[in-house]
Each structure stands twice: as C-alpha cells, then as structure tokens.
C-alpha cells in the first residue's frame, strides 16, 4: 500500500514536471467581461456541439482582468480571445504590443442595455438622467442655484423632482470593479452632470474636477453596492418594493413577471428601444482576437464564423433569446467581414 502510494506520488510529480515544457492546447481559451459571458458561452456550447472541435473554455474575469491576461503575451498559456463590455484602451493596446501582440482583431457583437428597475408591486418610475445624477452623486449642484457643489442633501425622490413619488432614495447597484458600473457612470452620471451648465463647462476646463463630481457615487447609504450577482439584486427588489436596482437588460428580460424597468428620459427599456438606440443607457459588447493564435489553436476561425453567423447574432438569432440586442444589418456586415478576414484593429482609431 505504501509502495503504491509512493509510486503514484512520484508519477504525479513527474507528470507535473513534464508539463513545465508547455504542450500545445487543443481548445480555445477565452477570458473577459462577465456581461459578455452569457452570450459567449452559448456560442461556445453550440460550437462545441456542432463541430468536431472541443468546446472553448470561458472564464469570467471582468473586462479589465480579461485585457490584462489577453495582453500578457503570445503562446498557448495565454488566452486567445477576450470579451469586453467596453472598447480596448490605448494603454492596453500598447501593453499588448510591448508583449509581442501586434495584431488584434476587434469584433462588436451587439448591445446591452443597462436598466434601472423596481418591483412590480410598486409604481413604474419615470426618471431622467438628471434625476439619477441628483439621486446618486456624492456631491450635487447647490439647490439654491449657485454654481457650487454641496454634499448630496436629497433623501427622497420627491425632493429631487416633484413628479416622483415620496419614497426614500434607495438604489442597489454593482460595485466599482464591475463593467456595468463603469458604463452606468459614463452613460448616466456624466450625462446627468452635463445638464448643469457650470458642470458641463467644467468638462472642457477642468476634466479632473468634472470626473470627480460626476463619477463619485454617494456613500451615505442611498446607493447600496449589491455585489456582482444580479440575481441577488432582483431578489432584493422583490422583497423591497421601494428600492431600485441597476443591472443588465438580460436579467430584466428573464424576470419580467417580478420587476419592471423604469423609463429613462421617457423611454422604456424594451428590446426595440435599445436596438434602435432611443433608450439612452446602452453600450456595445465586443470581443478581441489575438491574430497570432489563429492558426496555432484549432478552431478559432470556425468559432468566429459561428459567432458572426446570422443564426447566432442576427436579429432572430439565438443570442437575442438570451437578451443580446443585435446590431443593425450594416454593422453586422461590417464586423462579419472584419472577423472572417481577420482585419486587425488600427491602434490610431482608438
């Protein structure tokens, strides 16, 4: 028994050492955004079941974490594709280039709406980006009209806007590590801040101050960081009809019997409104492919083909069933060509 144990132990050790000399990989490795994850995984699964290739492995690391791993180098130990709920940054492209990655293919797959929702038991809210800015920013323009900022004094929605109900401001949302939070501050808070002339002027004169005002969320308990788990937010909204929650459209889509999306600037977060761009809080979803890996790892070309096929990302495709908002036919055509001909991103476009 002891001998067997010893042998097994030695065997495992040798195996471990054997793999130090990295062997080739026969499956695609994907990392990146947790927002793109539900869509990429469906494509990966379909790809794995309908082709002779293995199912790609997908890690949900967040957009930033994904770009970091993706940009660390060329070789089987590094991922082939990274998902992202924002465009790659110039600094990330430069870092990748420093590690020998010169050609990156950028593919947009569609859009995602960010919704501000509450329980069906409560009344539907009709919000504007300005209301949301005043409700959630740490410091807001002085209510007396002078162009100065004061710590956020608003306790109820009614005190912000007289046509809103008399209930306390209580919003459950993602923590700062989340891509949803990044997009939310960019699309709602920045836009809301710009509705005030002196803050709008600040964007040109003192960009840093502008960002501090618009992007600092209040910390007095009105905004509650509810973690990255959107299901949890949905459950909490059900239990507390006075609270609002911030999350991706697919969670609203799956729970329409329990929660409702507030209209923003008069537009309700429904599929068509996000697709045609009239709903103001939507962002592109993308993925990036390392061109150097394309013929090293089997199946990348075929995976791109599956992802960019009409039956996947088309307006009636299976990704829309999962809550993806498709691109227009023209845009789909453009990115289909980029993906299938592997046209690399031009860093000066960023």
């Amino acid at each position, binding site marked *: 028994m002891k001998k067997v144990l010893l042998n097994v132990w030695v065997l495992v050790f040798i195996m471990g050492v054997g793999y130090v000399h990295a062997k080739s990989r026969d499956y695609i490795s994907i990392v990146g955004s947790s927002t793109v994850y539900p869509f990429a995984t469906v494509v990966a*699964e379909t790809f794995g079941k309908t082709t002779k290739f293995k199912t790609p492995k997908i890690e*949900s690391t967040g957009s930033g974490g994904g770009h970091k791993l993706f940009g660390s180098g060329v070789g089987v130990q590094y991922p082939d594709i990274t998902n992202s709920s924002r465009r790659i940054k110039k600094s990330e492209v430069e870092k990748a280039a420093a590690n020998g990655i010169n050609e990156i293919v950028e593919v947009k797959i569609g859009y995602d709406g960010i919704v501000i929702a509450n329980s069906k038991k409560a009344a539907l809210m009709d919000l504007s980006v300005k209301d949301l800015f005043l409700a959630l920013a740490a410091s807001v323009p002085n209510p007396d009209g002078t162009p100065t900022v004061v710590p956020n004094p608003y306790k109820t929605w009614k005190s912000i806007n007289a046509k809103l109900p008399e209930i306390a401001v209580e919003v459950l949302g993602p923590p700062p590590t989340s891509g949803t939070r990044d997009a939310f501050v960019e699309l709602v808070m920045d836009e809301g801040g710009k509705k005030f002339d002196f803050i709008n002027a600040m964007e040109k004169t003192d960009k840093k101050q502008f960002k501090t005002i618009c992007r600092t969320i209040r910390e007095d308990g009105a905004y509650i960081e509810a973690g990255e788990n959107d299901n949890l937010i949905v459950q909490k909204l059900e239990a507390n009809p006075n609270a609002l929650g911030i999350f991706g459209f697919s969670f609203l889509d799956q729970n329409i019997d329990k929660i409702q999306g507030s209209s923003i600037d008069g537009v309700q977060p429904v599929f068509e409104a996000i697709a045609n761009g009239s709903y103001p809080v939507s962002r592109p979803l993308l993925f990036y492919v390392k061109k150097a890996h394309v013929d090293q790892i089997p199946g990348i070309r075929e995976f791109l083909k599956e992802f960019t096929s009409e039956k996947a990302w088309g307006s009636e495709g299976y990704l829309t069933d999962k809550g993806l908002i498709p691109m227009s036919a023209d845009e789909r055509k453009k990115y289909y060509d980029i993906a299938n001909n592997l046209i690399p991103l031009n860093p000066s476009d960023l």
Partner: protein
Amino acid sequence: MNNHTNNDNVTVRTIDLVQKGLARRYKSEKRFKMIGLCAIIFSLLCLAGLFVSISGSGYTAFLQTKIELDVFLDPSVLNPNNLSGADFHGLVKRSFYNMFPEVKDRREKKKLFSLLSSGATYDLTDFVKANPGKIGETILLWVPADDDVDMLIKGHMNRDLPESERRLDDVQVSWITRLEKQAKIEKKFNTTFFTAGDSREPELAGIWGATCGSFYTLFITLVLSFPIGVAAAVYLEEFARKNRFTDVIEVNINNLAAVPSIVFGLLGLAVFLNFLGLPRSSSLVGGLVLSLMTLPTIIIAGRAALKSVPPSIREAALGVGASKTQMVAHHVLPLAMPGILTGTIIGMARALGETAPLLMIGMVAFIVDIPAGFTDPSTVLPVQIFLWADSPERAFMEKTSAAIMVLLLFLVVMNSAAVFLRKKYEQRW
C-alpha cells in the same frame, strides 16, 4: 457543654447556609444547562432552516419536463453511411410541427419550436446513432422541453398573470395545456443533471463535469498533502530537537493554517502558472494549490495524534531494541493513524468546499466538456454552484440548490467517514 452547644450551633448554621443557597445553586445550574441546550437547539434550527430552504427549492431540479415526440426516421434524410451530416434538427422540427398541424405562420412556428430544448436534436442524434436499425420506422422519443416550459409545468411561472408578464405567451401556454391533456408532456427523473457537463441551457446543464473536476482536484490534493503532511508531522514530533528553529516552524505552520485561502490562490498563480507554466484552469494546478492549503491542517492533526500515543509505547519499543525508525513505523504511526486520517478527511472536506483560491488560477470558468485527465480544463462543484447562482435564467435557481444538495451530501459522507474512523479505531489509554 456550653462549648458543645456552641459547636452544634455552628454546624446547624453551616447546614442552614448550604440549604439556603442550595435552591439558588440548583437554579443557576439549571440555567447554565438551559443556555447550553438553547445554543444547540438554535444551531440545529439554523441547520434545519438551511436544509429545508435548500431542498425546498432544489428538489424540483431532480425532475425535468419532457415532451414526447413521434419521429418518423425518414430514410431519405438519414443515410446510415453518413449520419453525422444528416439534418437531425430539421427532423425534430418536422416531427414537432406535425403535432400541431394548424400552426402555419412562420412566426407562430418559431414560437412553437421554442417550446422544445435545443437538446432535442442531440437526443435524436444519439438515439439514431445507437440504433441505426430503426431507420425507416416511427419511434416515440421523450425529449427535454425548454427551461421556460419546465418552469411553467413546475409552477414557478404563474399562468394567471397577464401575457406581458410572463416569458411564455397565451398561445404557447395553450399549446402546453394541449400537450398536457394528451399526456405528451411529463416530468421525468432528470438523468441529464447527473451525467452532463455545464450548459447555458438550464435543461441541459449537469454536475458530472464539476464532480469529475472535484474528484481529480481532490485526488491530487490527497496524493500530495497526505504523505508530505504525515512525514512532516512525524519528523517534527519524533525526530526534531526542540529548539528555537522548530519553534519557528511550529508558529509558521499554525499561521499557515489560518491564512485566508485566496492567498494560496495568488501563490499558485505566481508559482505554478507564471513560473512553472503549468496549464491554466487544470485540476493539476487546482490540486497543487489546495494541497498547500490542506498541508498545515494535516500536519497539526498529525502531530496531535502522534502526541496522544503514550510515551510508554515508544520506550517499550526502544527497550526491546527497535530502532527509532522501527519504533515510529511499526508502533507509533499505526496507533496514531486514525487521528491522522480524521484530520486528513476534515482537511479534504474543506478543500472540496473551496472556491476562492481556484478563482485566481482560472478554474472559475464555463467548461462544457467532461474533464478526462489532470491537465484538462475543469471546474469544481462549489464553483459550479457559484456560476449557476449568477446566471440570469430562472431555471438555474433550482439547479443551484440541487448542486448544493449534492455538495452537502459529499461533505456529510466525508465527515461521517471521519467520525466512523475515529469511533472504530480510536485507542483509549
């Protein structure tokens, strides 16, 4: 006499004193016992609450709604020599449309077909490949229904709500009602849940992939941490001199046992992935990281077990001329083994429930294929639970609870084994 009376008085007074205080002391003893009992009852209630809420929401996942299809295995579609190229998807579609001949409109057809899971095609493919002789016949096949249908049948979706507030519209619900009347839709035992890997379709998702991953990971953990842990414990307890150096080691081991597990994940990322270049997301690396985490537990348990072997055994062995190695290998270690094994099993149970260190080494990933070896990408049970809990589809909620039930079952089995070993082989001196 006077003296005696005096003495008597004193005795009486003492007894009085004792009796006076007795009721109070009994009371306080009773109170103390009650507090202890309350603590036990409270923790049992918490545990019962946990079990009831988890099994209450999870037991339905062991059943899966299936729809019966009459499929005519058309020889013009299925060429026995080239089955892989055959249009199974079209065959499933046609068979399902045949059950609802009145549905003609393209949009309606799409809505109808969405009641079936995409797994129906794979099931038919598997069936035909296993029974090529049946081509040309009409067969009855139970195929999985879509997760929304599953939720409706299981009562998680309310049929009385207005159409706009549920994921299936009135026409779809009427179709399902019709299938129910024809007894063509039924809840059956969900074998997929125990045999499949992960999937983004709740009705096709299973825990077998994660279970295999957990098995491989724990195997590596056991094979590495048990021999190293026992050797370290034996050396420290039986051979090492007690000096400042061994004190430092002891402090460090105790310290390591209390280090948050995520730190081991970071170490694994830096050493095993970045420096040694081992494959990311593999159970090999997962096992290595978890064995680092389990080692201190095993060493501490091992040392305690060795310490509890009385010195007389050692002295007797040495007295009849055994060498120190013989004394340890033939007498002390076998006697300490039940204690060491108990510690090991408890350490392994902890490793089984761990997710944080695995996050850093890429095991928190969507993996469909069942891992076939130590270097294949794999995930483990608690990570699977985490991933499902974060999925938007409602049907994943019951899968999450069901996976927790399976994980708890494994933990109960492992911990009972530890108690059993202790009861059975424990020596009392």
